[in-house]
């Protein structure tokens, strides 16, 4: 059943202003999600937004769709039950970098491995913004944060490489600066059967940006453009230059069967051969 609704039928305008800091890209991502849902003519009651805890975890309060706001790191685990409880639903898990990859890392790995039909949209601002700018699993090595005043001693995660290795069907990286691409990738992710993941590199002007990126919030947004390069552009770079950039684009787009399709094929009403034993 398709509907023809503007993005404001998905977005809770009366909850404005957004709680996020001036210059944060979360509002841009939310706009892209609601526009993608509108473009795809998906009725709001067939969508469940599952959020974690953190700045991006507040996004559910701006949605008119069904929503779930649970515990830190578990958006995909709750989302797994939501999806299996009603497979007709579009389940979208919104997680930050710390939420998805530190405390929720195990769920992330296994949701991708199962290839469950959920779309994960990770707002990666390279730190824990809500709690005051501590380092996260994506904070680049040697960056300054409130818990790494001398620099982070750990290398950061490549969430796209992780998603691909684990088995996701669709993996894309873009930034809050690249709004057109952002909406295009989210649209493709929502259409994809199986696990899809869009990593959105985001600014955190209050914490990570203030400590590590020179200039004001506008220059921080431009910085997102400066540190990224397309797949085609990346291939042309000298090897020495490659590690200075993050690659944007559709990095994985494949058609592995999703979890529920495989489960249903294997359990079409109970495996008769195994039944009737063991009582």
């Amino acid at each position, binding site marked *: 059943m398709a509907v023809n609704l503007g993005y404001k039928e998905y977005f809770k305008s009366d*909850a404005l202003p957004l709680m996020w800091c001036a210059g944060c890209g979360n509002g841009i991502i939310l706009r892209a999600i609601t526009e993608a849902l509108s473009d795809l003519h998906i009725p*709001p*009651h*067939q969508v*469940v937004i*599952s959020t974690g805890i953190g700045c991006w975890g*507040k996004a*559910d*309060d701006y949605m*008119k*769709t*069904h*929503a*779930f*706001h*649970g*515990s830190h790191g*578990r958006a995909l*685990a*709750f*989302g*797994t*039950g*939501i*999806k*299996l*409880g*009603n497979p*007709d*639903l579009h389940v979208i898990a919104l997680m930050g970098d710390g939420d998805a990859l530190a405390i929720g890392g*195990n*769920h992330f*790995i*296994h949701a991708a491995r199962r290839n469950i039909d959920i779309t994960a949209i990770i707002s990666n601002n390279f730190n824990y913004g809500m709690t005051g700018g501590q380092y996260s699993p994506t904070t680049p090595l040697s960056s300054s944060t409130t818990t790494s005043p001398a620099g982070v001693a750990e290398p950061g995660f490549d969430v796209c490489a992780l998603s691909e290795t684990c088995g996701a069907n669709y993996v894309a990286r873009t930034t809050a600066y690249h709004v057109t691409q952002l909406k295009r990738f989210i649209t493709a992710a929502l259409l994809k059967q199986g696990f899809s993941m869009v990593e959105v590199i985001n600014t955190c002007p209050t914490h990570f940006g203030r400590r590590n990126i020179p200039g004001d919030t506008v220059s921080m947004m431009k910085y997102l453009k400066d540190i990224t390069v397309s797949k085609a552009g990346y291939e042309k770079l000298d090897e020495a230059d490659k590690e200075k950039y993050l690659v944007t684009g559709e990095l994985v787009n494949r058609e592995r069967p999703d979890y*529920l399709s495989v*489960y249903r094929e294997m*359990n*079409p*009403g*109970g*495996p008769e051969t*195994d*039944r*009737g*034993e*063991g*009582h």
Partner: protein
Amino acid sequence: MSRPEGIQLMEGNHACAWGAIDAGARFFAGYPITPSSEIAEVCARELPAYGGIFIQMEDEIGSIAAIIGASLSGKKSFTATSGPGFSLMQENLGVGIYQEVPCVIVDIQRVGPATGLATQPAQADVMQARWGTHGDHSIIALSPATVQEMYYLTIRAFNLSERFRTPVIILGDQVIGQTYENIKLPDPSSLDIIERIKPFVSPEDYFPYQPDKNGVPPMAAYGDRHIVHASSTCHDETGYSNFKTQTNRALLTRLKDKIYNYTDEIVDVEHFGPDHAEVTLISYGASSRVCKYVVGEAEKEGIRVNLLRLISIWPFPDRIVREALGKTGAVVVAEMNQGQLIGEVNRVNATNTPVYLASGIDGALIDPDIIMAAIREALK
């Protein structure tokens, strides 16, 4: 069909799984842990034939998260675990309580803390079931003492969870979970099955956390046109975040009242033995079976002993226990821990009746001699 017909020799864990299926459970998420894993195994084998889904999650945190999610999507859902897994579930148990999600958590208790005397029986998760998740909250917990009762209490656990829109815990133990006993599953059509109340207003007028007269909000499912916003953050009747102190007060009060104002509807006990006794045993689960034996043994010695068996543990049956304390010479609380429910017995002891503990912590069914020794101590 593999649903057991007639009288069957069945394990308690299997009886639990069949009780859940007969109660309408169509989603199970779990993580293997002895001595509860057979519940998962039966669900993996049987649920698809009922149109249900089984999933083995990556851990117990994910397991309880998945059953909460599936319940919000409209499926009766449950999980099963033992002590270490039950500990991991505590944070999300609070999410389920706060979001008012019907679901059942089966804890087949074993000796702890930590890995403990794996995987021998204990009843030492009683207070964790009550207070394991952070923050003020209410909880319902039931304690089966036989395989047949495991079946019926599992059905009752689902009924209570649907009636009150809240997680319900089955506090089993290794003895009940892994003992084989004769059981007869009833005709499913003969069972009273309670379903959650659906909204009776139009989608436009629906607020997912506006309670009915019992304090329980009618419950739409994800996918319904009635939009559901379920939040672990303080929320008003719309379900959306609300940080007003009066909202928090009203929500916490309602969540408590919706259960504690109906304690009598939940409480279930069995009186065993003579009406009046020199010593009254208070016990539950596997320990209570030993108590029944002890009642007979004491009688042979000319000691009049009776038993108050708690079938429901939480909310604690204050009134019934207080009455029992008031009409006996002494009380012996028999439990397989270092003394957990005895604290509740002392709390309601308005008559200053002497209360003794018979504590079984040997990783085995509590020894009748331990209980007899406590009775003799009480009679000194």
